[in-house]
């Protein structure tokens, strides 16, 4: 019952939090001392990036690992990995778009060869590669195994992205929310808006994942019916 209730509430709660983020970000929070109103985009961009790089990609990686381990191998794990990676592509593209929109007035260019931007773009192409790999294999088991291994390999890029901010000379913001000894840098209504934004977009990911998962289950049902029809046809062929 709790599960059903939480599934029913996921959509409305997500919409409320996102609406709250927009209201707070656009009308309530003050402009930044340095960036002015441009800071309002940062109530969206970091949260989307967090979901893109860690939540969605991480979900796809964990589900892939669960599929690869015999004890936890199941079609559910494969479906979750596939759907999470699709949603990840959407969030990665949004990360790059919002980042570019913020970057244009800040750096003067739509695209700067900044380490984090570049790494995020690479991750986006990796995610597209995952989807291309799935399309190249019709056999479900073959497709699931190869995709899972590829997701694990792609995940190796995530720590490289994480460390790139510290190690590479970069135009990108350094740590924005916390310092290296975990002192909060953002205060007041800005901090609350940022927190609500992170929670809202994280829930948005899970909402989209659930919707995509349901679609995938329906698609597989249709595919199974097609296979059953092909099998009957083949058996009739032999009887003639």
């Amino acid at each position: 019952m709790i599960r059903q209730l939480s599934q029913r509430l996921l959509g409305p709660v997500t919409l409320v939090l996102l609406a709250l983020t927009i209201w707070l970000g656009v009308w309530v929070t003050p402009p930044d001392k340095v960036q002015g109103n441009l800071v309002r985009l940062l109530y969206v961009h970091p949260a989307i990036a967090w979901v893109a790089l860690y939540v969605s990609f991480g979900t796809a990686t964990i589900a892939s690992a669960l599929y690869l381990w015999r004890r936890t191998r199941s079609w559910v794990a494969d479906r979750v990995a596939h759907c999470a990676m699709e949603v990840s592509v959407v969030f990665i593209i949004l990360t790059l778009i919002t980042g570019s929109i913020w970057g244009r007035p800040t750096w003067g260019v739509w695209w700067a060869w900044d380490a984090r931007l570049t790494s995020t773009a690479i991750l986006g192409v990796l995610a597209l590669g995952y989807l291309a790999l799935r399309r190249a294999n019709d056999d479900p088991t073959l497709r699931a195994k190869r995709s899972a291994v590829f997701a694990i390999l792609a995940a190796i890029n995530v720590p490289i992205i994480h460390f790139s901010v510290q190690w590479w000379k970069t135009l990108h913001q350094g740590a924005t929310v916390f310092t290296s000894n975990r002192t909060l840098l953002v205060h007041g209504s800005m901090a609350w808006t940022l927190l609500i934004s992170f929670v809202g977009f994280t829930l948005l990911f899970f909402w989209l994942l659930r919707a995509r998962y349901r679609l995938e289950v329906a698609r597989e049902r249709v595919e199974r019916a097609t296979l059953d029809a092909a099998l009957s046809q083949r058996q009739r062929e032999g009887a003639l």
Partner: protein
Amino acid sequence: MASDPLVHLVDAVVFTNGFPLLSGVDLDVAPSSLNVVTGANGAGKTSLLRLLAGLVALSSGEGTVCGIDLAKGDLRQLRRRVGWLGHEGSFYADLSASENLRFCATALERPFDQIDLVLERVGLSARANTTTRQLSAGQRRRLGLAWLLLRRAELWLLDEPYASLDDQGREFFDDLLAEVTGAGATVVVSAHDPLRSARLRPRAIHLAGGRVQGDRR
């Protein structure tokens, strides 16, 4: 008391790219027997052999080969126990006949001194140092046999082995089949037509539409 079958399939189905290659095969194969699987093109002969070799996965149904469950067992272990002769050839084209056999022997930890013996047995001693790319189709087929002789597998799976063989080659092949089944191996051969040999009396299994439609012992 009859021994357990070496191959036991119940309603075995194999799908590839959405097409049912096998659509419900029921089959038992006794150990130390010679079996010929016949059928028209597209009947599922090659697919059946590949299933028995552990080269394709079982989509549904049950099956055990050499005691290994096709759905849950370790197919790598199964593959080590079968000898496979495909109709496309089995080797690295840029390695010579003896180099290919040496690779096989090293992989299976067999002594090298058997290589010359098997090459002589199949009539390829003179071509030992010829790359397989330069061998004729019939010679490549003989090299495949040499590969099988080196392996001493308990289950031999031969996919249309008589193709590309002349009369002498076919007779040689019949001798070989009689010898290996007499030595205890189980052989499953696929062919378009039943074997025309006077000496061999194989069981004839007829496939059509991916299922067994006839079985004559």
